[in-house]
């Protein structure tokens, strides 16, 4: 600290006090001030804090260095090293009853007067004060004083005591004999007690850094170096020491003391102060002369160097606390990253170094960000609307519920997916049926082959082809292959009063298609009853009634509707619909027909619409049913298989398939099967929804 530049020291035990030293000691008290008005005598340090001057001590005009008493003391006891080498204990308080009263005014005088460069109070034993002096040919430069010594001076020295205290009648004891004397014939520029042991002192002598062990003063460990100024120990890593010379800072590891671990980039101007941050690990602040920036070196994230060549990485930052040149700065002992800087004309400002922020995204939609010691987690708020949920979230939830992994009962997978997407339901049921039927047909074919083995090979050719692969190919191919083998049946609706002719088409392929649609179980039995029962159990009354109707059983339909109306969750309106149904008449020009054909469009439920469309439409043209988009595709296809002739059927299937493919509607798997067309369908589905999960599981089957 040169004569004119002020220096700042924080009180070690008073969190809000600091002292500014140049030619006098001024004690300030720091306050947080929210209001913009300043109390009288306050200085504004920053937007939130002000400082009030508490007291001034001008007893020691030749001060060169200052050290604060390490124990808690309300009086702010300080040791001041002067230009003539004397160390004086002085205080900034006015309380005359303090415990340390007898310490105040004590002087420690070296044998030969020369400048005192540095002072260090032992943090563990507060009686020991180390002073580092300039060199003298006959004297030691590192003196350790015991401040509690009431050592009576020898008689030989008594004469000088009179001489010395003549001018200072109130002076307390003058101590001339230090506890230890170290470091002969070399100036001491900086001192630091090592925290790991009470008796280890690190001194920056003129040409080397020396560690003095007070238990054995004849020994010392030293390393020749130029970087001897400003030694400080990292408060978090007690083996890490920083020192500087001119513009270069060297970082040492005391365990391997031969050469510095790291030297920081050299500054063009000499440094004035180097200080470790006491509140954050691995942060070193340096100040160069005549500069208004403080450089911060972050050593927290340095990886251990591999081998001898790589240097640890240091992150360097500069901060500018104020516009003017900075004379000195001091870290706040407890508040994180906070420091107070003072300019040569004694303006001070309070400054907090803002930490770098790091962000991390989680794989799910939440965000974490960290700044210094704060950690914030942000998660998405809002109702989980399954339709609006991101497909990635949906896929993750489905994967968690083991979606796609049920390969036995494949249809269960749609339940695992939450049973919310009708397209998925259709897809998995289709796959299920395909697999079931394939199994059956393969088994049959194999069985037949085994049976026919004894016959000749030409008989094999007469066997009907294995229907197994055909099943994979979807209804489209099934239907194509059935050209020309349709049987026409004239059928009448059961339960009606009159005979009416509805053309139904039957063939093996069509019944296979119906099996795929799920209307009938395997076998040639055309009984829809089990399907109807299952629909009733699910509570899908309208669909059950429609299917029953499409199987030409009006009574059954009415029965279902009545059941539905009377069931727990049923809609009472179903009774009305049943009533309307029961009025069915075959006459083309009846009022019933007219009314139903127009009013059916006002019905909400698509199946009811379809029902009335079926009843009121001309035979052969069932567009009202076929193009009712909200009716499930499989029902429409099954209907088409029953009531459309070959040409119409083909056209319809073709059109529907293309529609499905364009829309990426998974219900179309039924039509396309697991063929190349099916792949195209999947592709447009994935394009639309991004649901690669379903596509992959499906293709695995």
């Amino acid at each position, binding site marked *: 600290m040169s004569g004119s530049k002020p220096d700042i020291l924080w009180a070690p035990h008073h969190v809000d006090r600091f002292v500014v030293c140049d030619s006098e000691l001024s004690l300030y008290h720091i306050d947080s001030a929210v209001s913009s008005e300043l109390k009288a005598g306050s200085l504004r340090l920053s937007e939130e804090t002000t400082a009030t001057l508490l007291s001034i001590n001008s007893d020691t005009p030749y001060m060169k260095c200052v050290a604060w008493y390490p124990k808690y003391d309300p009086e702010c006891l300080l040791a001041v090293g002067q230009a003539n080498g004397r160390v004086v204990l002085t205080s900034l308080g006015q309380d005359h009853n303090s415990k340390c009263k007898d310490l105040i005014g004590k002087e420690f005088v070296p044998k030969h007067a020369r400048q005192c460069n540095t002072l260090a109070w032992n943090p563990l034993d507060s009686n020991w004060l180390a002073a580092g002096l300039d060199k003298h040919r006959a004297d030691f430069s590192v003196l350790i004083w015991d401040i509690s010594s009431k050592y009576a001076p020898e008689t030989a020295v008594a004469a000088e005591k009179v001489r010395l205290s003549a001018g200072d009648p109130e002076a307390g004891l003058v101590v001339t004999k230090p506890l230890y004397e170290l470091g002969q014939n070399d100036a001491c520029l900086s001192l630091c007690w090592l925290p790991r042991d009470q008796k280890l002192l690190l001194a920056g002598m003129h040409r080397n850094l020396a560690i003095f062990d007070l238990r054995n*003063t004849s020994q010392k460990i030293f390393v020749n170096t130029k970087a001897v100024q400003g030694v400080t120990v990292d408060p978090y890593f007690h083996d890490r020491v920083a020192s500087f010379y001119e513009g270069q800072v060297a970082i040492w590891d005391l365990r391997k003391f031969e050469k510095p671990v790291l030297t920081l980039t050299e500054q063009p101007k000499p440094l004035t102060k180097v200080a470790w941050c006491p509140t954050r690990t691995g942060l070193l602040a340096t100040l160069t002369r005549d500069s208004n920036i403080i450089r911060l070196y972050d050593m927290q994230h340095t990886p251990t160097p591999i081998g001898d060549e790589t240097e640890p990485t240091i992150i360097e930052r500069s901060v500018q606390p104020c516009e003017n040149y900075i004379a000195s700065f001091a870290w706040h002992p407890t508040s994180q990253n906070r420091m107070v800087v003072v300019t040569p004309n004694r303006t001070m400002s309070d400054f907090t170094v803002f930490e770098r922020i790091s962000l991390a995204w989680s794989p799910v939609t939440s965000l974490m960000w960290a700044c210094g010691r704060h950690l914030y987690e942000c998660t998405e708020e809002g109702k989980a609307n399954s339709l609006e949920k991101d497909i990635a979230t949906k896929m993750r939830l489905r994967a968690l519920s083991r979606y796609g992994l049920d390969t036995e009962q494949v249809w269960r997978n749609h339940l695992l997916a939450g049973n919310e997407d009708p397209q998925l339901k259709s897809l998995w049921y289709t796959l299920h049926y395909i697999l079931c039927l394939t199994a059956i047909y393969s088994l049959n074919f194999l069985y037949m082959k085994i049976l026919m083995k004894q016959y000749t090979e030409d008989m094999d050719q007469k066997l009907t082809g294995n229907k197994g692969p055909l099943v994979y190919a979807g209804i489209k191919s099934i239907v194509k292959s059935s050209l020309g083998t349709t049987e026409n049946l004239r059928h009448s609706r059961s339960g009606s009063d009159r005979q009416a002719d509805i053309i139904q088409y039957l063939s093996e392929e069509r019944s296979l298609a119906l099996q795929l649609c799920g209307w009938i179980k395997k076998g040639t039995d055309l009984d829809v009853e089990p399907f109807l029962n299952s629909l009733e159990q699910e509570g899908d009354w309208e669909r059950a009634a429609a299917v029953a109707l499409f199987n030409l059983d009006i009574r059954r339909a009415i029965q279902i509707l009545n059941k539905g109306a009377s069931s727990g969750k049923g809609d009472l309106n179903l009774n009305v619909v049943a009533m309307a149904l029961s009025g069915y008449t075959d006459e083309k020009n009846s009022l019933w027909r007219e009314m139903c054909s127009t009013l059916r469009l006002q019905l909400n439920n698509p199946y009811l619409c379809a029902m009335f469309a079926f009843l009121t439409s001309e035979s052969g043209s069932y567009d009202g049913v076929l193009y009712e988009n909200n009716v499930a595709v499989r029902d429409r296809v099954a209907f088409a298989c029953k009531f459309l002739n070959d040409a119409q059927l083909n056209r319809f299937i073709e059109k529907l398939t293309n529609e499905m493919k364009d829309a990426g509607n998974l219900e179309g798997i039924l039509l396309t099967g697991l063929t190349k067309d099916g792949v195209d369908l999947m592709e447009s589905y994935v394009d639309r929804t991004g649901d690669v999960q379903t596509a992959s599981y499906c293709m695995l089957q």
Partner: protein
Amino acid sequence: ELPPSEFMQVADSTWLVLSVVSNGRAPSGSQATGVTKIARSVIAPLAEHHVSVLMLSTYQTDFILVRERDLPVVIHTLAGEFDIYKEESGECVPVTCDDASNGFLKDKPATSPTLHPVQSPQTRFCILTVAPDTLPAIATMLIDVLFYSHSPPREAGASSQDLDSITFFAFSLIEGYISIVMDAETQKRFPSDLLLTSSTGELWRMVRIGGQPLGFDECGIVAQIAEPLAAADISAYYISTFNFDHALVPEEGIAEVIQLLQQRQDSGR
């Protein structure tokens, strides 16, 4: 480089500076410092090898000057007892001593060294330092003392051997450290709190060696003073100047010193 001038005499050779740096070993029992401390280990051997030395003691440390051309002899002589380092751009580089002894002067036949007369004025001196940043405060005073002080006029015919006072003032600025030797009367002219000295305020008495200008080639001058002092364990400051050599001993010890030197002189005659 100072321009040559008829008012200035310059010695002919270049001199190199040596200083003894303590290596931290426990101090020997002797309390003496300065030239006395190194009398046996440095001064005497160098004198035996016919190396002419100059000494300069300052407040901070002691320097020994040897001629540049004598350096190999010096290293050869001292290498046995000391580790020798050369300072190159701030770093200390060890100097190895090879065993070559080319160019060493042959040992001259042992001549008895000339005993030089000594004088001891009554003036009391003090050895001081000044903090470098307070130098401007005393600068005018210093210049006044250095250049404008008037020595008392010599009385015609008085024997120069009986001078009661010798004006002596030494100011050195070495590596930023200042060292001043001045007599006690002059010290009073300076502000007292700016001059830093020993806390005991000890004063020194001077012994001036040589009746006439000593020259630079003779060796053994320092040795003949240092040896008796070392035997008596008295610390001394030794400052060699262009004409004479000056040894400063503590005030209390001056009587003993004079007695020792007198004995030596008597025994030498």
